[in-house]
């Protein structure tokens, strides 16, 4: 898949790769600004990921690991590099690709085609779980009802759970996602803006949910998206097959503002991104602060700090024609629902597909 041969050198770059001192450099390394050739860059990048995996003990031999695969550059590079390292360093992992089909025509259907090609290219079995099967609704149908406001809330809540459910179907021990440093910094900011202390305290960890059924890890946690962006450059040089179209429903997502801010910040001082993550990590919450207790959803059995998990609340709203249910401030919702249950004997009127048929 790689392009053959070295193109002619530009006489303005006469230096040689600082690693092999032999080939013509192709890029400057972001951290050190060392000039490095393509082949050495592959090795250095893969070695960095390997070190992150080893130092943070992300995997244990014999584990089954699902790679959350969107078809985008980060998860495609993750799938490629992880399967390569698994062979090279004998991690002894059983790797799978796990994709979520939100049911977004013109976006997810195309990116799923990419993942299906990756399945063949990397020889990793692929599992696709769809919102339609899990919840009875596609995002296209949801957007038709609620419009382009709050749609990302539905999608985000559903995806989080769908990934766990898909992972349970695959019977994997862990899920690895392609989240990079910029993504995590965005999440730190969003959790601060939302005042979500519980999530703030766990969103920066490289592995999360270790107390739960299926932990998640982010091997790209330390990779900045600055230019030259290693993940993107790797994907381009290796001619990896990835999909790069923005979700057609996302322009109004709150996250977009955080992303824009992070990008501006990165332009001024790239390290700022890692500093934000560090701040998130260093947040210490007073022991007297009452944290939400993790329980299970009474309806579907998914982890939840409330009586019902967020997905069930949102689904309930959709199925009852009250899509605003569960959007915005959640205070009062449970009270409202209790009243509903009393008045309408609600539990019997639920027509949606049961989402509690999976074991966790």
């Amino acid at each position, binding site marked *: 898949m790689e392009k053959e041969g070295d193109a002619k050198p530009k006489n303005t770059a006469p230096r040689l790769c600082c690693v092999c001192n032999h080939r013509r450099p192709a890029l400057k390394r972001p951290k050190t600004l060392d000039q490095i050739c393509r082949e050495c860059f592959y090795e250095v990048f893969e070695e960095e990921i390997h070190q992150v995996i080893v130092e943070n003990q992300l995997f244990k031999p014999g584990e089954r690991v699902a790679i959350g695969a969107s078809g985008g550059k980060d998860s495609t590079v993750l799938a490629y590099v992880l399967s390569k390292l698994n062979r090279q360093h004998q991690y002894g992992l059983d790797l799978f690709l796990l994709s979520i089909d939100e049911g977004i025509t013109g976006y997810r259907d195309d990116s799923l085609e990419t993942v299906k090609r990756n399945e063949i290219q990397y020889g990793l079995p692929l599992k696709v779980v769809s919102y339609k099967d899990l919840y009875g609704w596609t995002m296209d149908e949801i957007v038709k009802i609620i419009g382009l406001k709050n749609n990302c809330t539905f999608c985000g809540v559903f995806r989080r759970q769908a990934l766990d459910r898909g992972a349970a179907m695959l019977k994997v021990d862990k899920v690895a996602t392609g989240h990079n440093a910029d993504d995590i910094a965005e999440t730190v900011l969003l959790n601060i803006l939302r005042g979500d202390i519980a999530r703030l305290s766990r969103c920066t960890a490289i592995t999360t949910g270790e107390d739960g059924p299926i932990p998640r890890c982010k091997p790209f946690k330390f990779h900045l*998206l600055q230019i030259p962006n290693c993940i993107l450059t790797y994907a381009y040089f290796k001619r990896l097959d990835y999909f790069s179209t923005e979700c057609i429903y*996302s322009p109004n997502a709150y996250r977009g503002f955080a992303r824009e801010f992070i990008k501006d910040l990165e332009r001024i001082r790239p390290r700022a991104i890692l500093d934000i993550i560090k701040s998130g990590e260093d947040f210490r919450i007073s022991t007297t602060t009452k944290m939400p207790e993790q329980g299970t959803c009474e309806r579907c059995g998914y982890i939840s700090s409330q009586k019902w998990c967020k997905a069930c609340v949102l689904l309930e709203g959709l199925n009852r024609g009250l899509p605003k249910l569960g959007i915005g401030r959640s205070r009062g919702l449970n009270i409202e629902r209790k009243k509903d249950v009393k008045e309408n004997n609600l539990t019997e009127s639920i027509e949606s597909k049961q989402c509690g048929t999976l074991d966790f």
Partner: protein
Amino acid sequence: MQLTLEFGGGLELLCESKKIHKVNVETQKGVEKLTMKDLLTWVRTNLIKERPEMFMKGDTVRPGVLVLVNDCDWELSGQLNTTLEEKDVVVFISTLHGG
């Protein structure tokens, strides 16, 4: 001057969803060489059909766009001052789209 231009990471959407453009860029009269600065102006005028602000900011590419000249980061060849030659391959990839 014959050049191959490649757009990726969503930038192709700005030029009629075509990723690879084989183009012939005329150098200005009396000037032999063509620099990346000249090429960017040419691309903006001749190839970019919509939302040029997604591609350029000021006289250079928008932050977040990776530029490779013959598979080499243009930082190594002098960015805007990079001199282009016949049959060079220039790649523009945006990182701004999701991963």
